[in-house]
């Protein structure tokens, strides 16, 4: 993926459970807390060796919210969720890959 497409210019919490990311290539991504939580890349949510998911989005209640959002160095975002889970580091690439907008869904297929 191009560097522009994975470089955020703005990361904004729109509501307790929704995050907006504007990318340097002009794209906009909206992420819901329950989906990000369900796709957490940390070792207790996803098997380190096989990549098999242990926690799935279907395990997460829709009411889940962001408790804390902060940047990790210059390459990722760290979330603490309302269920106290806080071990995932979401790289900019991963956050862009997870974009669920119609345009990205089409290009995935």
């Amino acid at each position, binding site marked *: 993926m191009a560097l522009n497409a994975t470089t955020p210019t703005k990361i*904004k*919490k729109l509501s307790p459970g929704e995050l907006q990311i504007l990318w340097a290539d002009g794209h906009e991504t909206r992420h819901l807390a329950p989906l990000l939580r369900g796709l957490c890349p940390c070792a207790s949510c996803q098997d380190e060796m096989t990549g098999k998911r242990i926690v799935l989005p279907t395990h997460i209640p829709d009411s889940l919210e962001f408790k804390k959002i902060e*940047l990790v160095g210059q390459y990722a975002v760290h979330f603490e969720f309302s269920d106290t889970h806080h071990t995932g580091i979401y790289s900019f690439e991963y956050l862009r890959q997870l974009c669920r907008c119609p345009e990205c869904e089409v290009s995935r297929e």
Partner: protein
Amino acid sequence: MAIWNKDKDGGVTEEKVLDVLKQVKDPDLHKDIVSLGFVRNLKIDGGNVAFDVNLTTPACPVKDQMRDEAIALVRGLAGVKDVAVNMTAEVRTTPTMDKTALKGVKNIVAVGSGKGGVGKSTVAVNLAASLAMEGTAVGLLDGDIYGPTMPIMLGIHEPPKSVNNRMIPMESAGLRFMSMGLLVKSDQPLIWRGPMAHRALQQCLFDVEWGELDYLIVDLPPGTGDIHLTLAQQVPLTGAVIVTTPQDVGLRISMKTLRMFEQTRVPILGIVENMSYYICPHCDSRDYIFGEGGGKRAAAEIGIPFLGEVPLDVAIRKQSDAGSPIVVSQPQSESAKNLREISKRIAAQVSIRSYATGPILEVE
């Protein structure tokens, strides 16, 4: 506006001076010094013109060239008799720099290498001391938790004092420094697992009273491990400098460190080639014992700046062992001159980065 600026017979005006100064370009930032806001305190008194040029670092490699150009251009204006230019500098902060932790630190630069023994710490100490000699406030953090060498190179072994639970960095060679070697007896090994090293580095970063710093240089341990990851995650690094030897094998391993920085989005400021050639202490002849131009070629291949060559010089080793960096103890030597040039190129790269922008976080 002052009266002389309204001079009708074509006298010297502020506008005219600024207009010719627009021809002076900062070669690194690719803009003229007027648009960059470098020209300050412009005073015109009849034919006498005086102004400051406020650069982004006192260690600017083309400082003299820019001053001479500015003087020549203004002197060329009709009616100008005398031109006085005062070169000043104000180091800019990396835009993504955290506002709370390390709040007085403007830029953090990591010095890394792929493998050990390439002289990374020697280069780091001399670069930090060079920047301090240019009049900037410099801190040096020995990130090599397991094999700290800074206390030897800077000739200080006393443990730092603490005030209000914060350690006061030691001072030597015009810079403030902190090293695990100051806290542990020199012959005692640290037998720690990753999380302990992580904690130790965190404390050296955040529990030290660094104060106001233009540059904090972090000397990393070799390779790509816990310390590197901690640093890349905990602080927004302005950039990283890679130290390598001219040998192919040294270079190839350096690439790993380079890729690690890329993956964590740490800008690479450039490659420093150490042990480039051997200067014979008897006849001053040069020998490229590890091959010539390896670092330069690698830098060109991957498109990053080549910052310069440091010779394999017995004087560097002697001064390091004696606790006084060569740039301070033998400033006129070839090695010291090379190191000081390299430090200026790094300062220029840092200035370029300070004009980049990071993501805006609106989460409250």
